[in-house]
C-alpha cells in the first residue's frame, strides 16, 4: 500500500507522540534500573560506579526485611488457595446446578463486592476481626482478602465454566460417574486455565496490598513486605535509599514474573479487571 505524503507524516507524528507518552510513563521508574545496584544511591538518577550487588546482600542479611517477604508469601499463598478453591466450587455450583435464585445470587454478589470496598469497610472489618479474636494474625489477613476477592473470582470463573459444554460431564455421568467424580475428574481439568487466571489475579492483589495488613497487624514479625518496607526509614523519617531500592526490586519481582507468565501463556490482551 502506498502512503501519501500527508499520511506518512501523520504516521511519523503518531509514533513520535506515542514514544513521548511512553517516555513520560517510564520516567518515574527509570531510577529503579540504577539505584538498586549502586552502593551510594541517592534519590537522583546516577549510573552506578561500579555496579554492585552490595545493597541486595545487605537486604538478605536483614532479618526483618526477609521475614516481610516470607509473611507476604504466607498471606498471599493462603489467600490464593482459599479464593481459588472456594470460588471454583461456588462458580461450578452456580453454573451447573439449578438452585433457585442463581441469577439473583450473582447480582447481589456483584453489587456488594463493589459497594463494600476496603476503604468503606475498614472500621467493621477491624471490629469483626477483633471480636472473633483474630487480631494480629496471618489468618485474619488471609480471611479478609479471601472474602473480599471471592465475588470477582466467582464471577470470572462462572463466565469461564458457562462457556464449557455440559456434555463433558453428562457423558461421564451416563458412564456411571457420580456428580462429584464428574466435577473432579472431568470438569476440573477443563476449568484449569480459568483457575490459573484467578490465582494470578488474587496473588498480585494480596501481594501488593497495603491497607488491610496495615490495619489488622501489630507485631513486627507478621508484617508483609508492603508494611515492612517502612523499616528502611531512619528514626528521623529519612529513607535509607540504597536498601529501599534493592528491597523494592526484590519485592516487585514476583508480580513482574507473573505478568510475564500470563502474557506469555494467554497473550496479555485484555484481562477483565485484573485489579480489584
Amino acid at each position, binding site marked *: 500500500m502506498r502512503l501519501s505524503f500527508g499520511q506518512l507524516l501523520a*504516521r511519523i507524528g503518531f*509514533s513520535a507522540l*506515542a*514514544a513521548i*507518552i*511512553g517516555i513520560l*510513563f*517510564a*520516567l*518515574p*521508574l*527509570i*531510577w529503579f534500573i540504577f539505584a538498586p545496584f549502586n552502593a551510594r544511591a541517592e*534519590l*537522583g*538518577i546516577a549510573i552506578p560506579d561500579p555496579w554492585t550487588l552490595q545493597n541486595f546482600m545487605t537486604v538478605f542479611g536483614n532479618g526483618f526485611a526477609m521475614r516481610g517477604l516470607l509473611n507476604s508469601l504466607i498471606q498471599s499463598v493462603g489467600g490464593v488457595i482459599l479464593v481459588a478453591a472456594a470460588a471454583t*466450587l*461456588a462458580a461450578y*455450583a452456580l453454573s*451447573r*446446578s439449578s*438452585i433457585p435464585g442463581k441469577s439473583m445470587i450473582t*447480582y447481589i*454478589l456483584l*453489587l*456488594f463486592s*463493589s459497594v463494600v*470496598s*476496603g*476503604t*468503606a*469497610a*475498614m*472500621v*467493621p*472489618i477491624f*471490629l*469483626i476481626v477483633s471480636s472473633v479474636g483474630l487480631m494480629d494474625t496471618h489468618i485474619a489477613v488471609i480471611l*479478609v482478602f479471601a*472474602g*473480599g476477592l*471471592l*465475588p470477582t473470582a466467582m464471577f470470572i470463573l462462572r463466565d469461564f465454566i458457562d462457556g464449557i459444554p455440559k456434555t463433558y460431564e*453428562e457423558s461421564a455421568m451416563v458412564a456411571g460417574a457420580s*456428580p*462429584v467424580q*464428574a466435577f473432579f475428574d472431568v470438569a476440573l481439568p477443563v476449568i484449569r486455565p480459568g483457575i490459573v487466571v484467578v490465582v494470578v489475579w488474587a496473588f498480585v492483589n494480596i501481594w*501488593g496490598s*497495603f491497607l488491610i495488613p496495615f490495619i489488622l497487624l501489630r507485631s513486627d514479625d507478621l508484617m508483609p513486605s*508492603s508494611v515492612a*518496607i517502612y523499616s528502611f526509614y531512619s528514626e528521623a523519617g529519612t529513607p535509607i535509599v540504597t536498601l529501599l531500592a534493592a528491597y*523494592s526490586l526484590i*519485592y*516487585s519481582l514476583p*508480580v*513482574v514474573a507473573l*505478568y510475564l507468565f500470563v502474557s506469555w501463556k494467554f497473550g496479555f490482551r*485484555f*484481562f477483565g*479487571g485484573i485489579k480489584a
Partner: protein
Amino acid sequence: MKKNFSLLSHRAGAAFLAPAAALVGVFVLLPFFWVIFVSFTNRTLLGKTALNPDFVGLANYFQLFDPATFFTRGQFGFSLILTTQFVLLSALVGQALLGLLLAWLMQTIPPALKRIVETAVIAAWILPEVVIGFAWFAFLDYDNGTLNMILRGLGLPAGDFLLQQPFWVIVIFNTWRGAAFSMMLFNSAFASIPPSYFQAADVAGASSWQKFRDIGLPLIRGHVVTDLILITMWTFNVFTPFILTNGGPSYRTELLSIYNYRIAFREFDFGKGAAVGVIIMLINLAFALIYLSFGRKKAKAVQE
C-alpha cells in the same frame, strides 16, 4: 433425559456454595450491615466506649454535615469535594482520555514501539503500590529527583511539588498509575471493530481523526461507559495517595479514604469513621446500580 436436567443436585450445589458463602457472608455482607450499626453509636477504639458504646442516633452524621465546619480543611465536606475533584480530573479526564488516546495510537504505530510503550504504561499499573509510592517520592525529590533534574536541565524553575502542589501531584500520579486499564479496555474494544470499516474509510481518504470520530468512537460507546463507571468507582475508593502524601500537607490531599482512616485509626473515633464508611458505600451503591442496570440492558440487547 429431562430437558432441564442439572448436573448437581440442590444439596450438592449448596455444599459447593457453602465455603464461598461463609467467607463472603462474614467479610463482605456482614461489614455492610455492621458499619451502618456502628455509625449510630459513639464506639471508640480505646476507653470506656470501646466495650460499651452508647446509641447516639444520627449524631455522627450531624457532626459530619455540621455547616459551621463542613468546608474547613480536614473536615468531611472538604474531603468530599476534594475527592470529587480528584475523581473528575484523574479518572474521568486523565485516565480515560489518556487511555483512549493511547489505544488509538496503538492501532497505527509499529509493533515494536507499541510493545515498548505498552510495557511502560502497564508497569505503572502492575507494580505494588508501596514501590510506586517510593518511586514517585524519589522522582519528585527537590534536590536530586529526576523531575527537577529535567526541569533544571531545560532551564525551568525546579519545585518541591509535594509541598507546593500536592493535589495536582496526586491527580497526575493517579492518572499515570491507572491509565493502563482504560488503554487495554479500549484496545480490545477497537480490536473488535471489523477492519473492513476502517479500510473503507481509508479508500475514501478519511483522516485518522475522522475515522476516530465517525467510526471508532461511536462503535465503542458501550465500552466507554463501562470504563468510566469502573474507573470512577476505583478512583473514588483509592487509598494509594496516602503512601505518597499521608493526606498532607495540612490535609490538602486528604481524600475520603484517607479521612476515614484518620478519623477511625488515628483519632480512634469508630462511630464517626463508620458514618463516613456508610456515606462512601452509599455513593458506591449509586454507581454500582448504574453500572449493573447498564450491563443488564446490554445483555438484553444481545439476547434480542
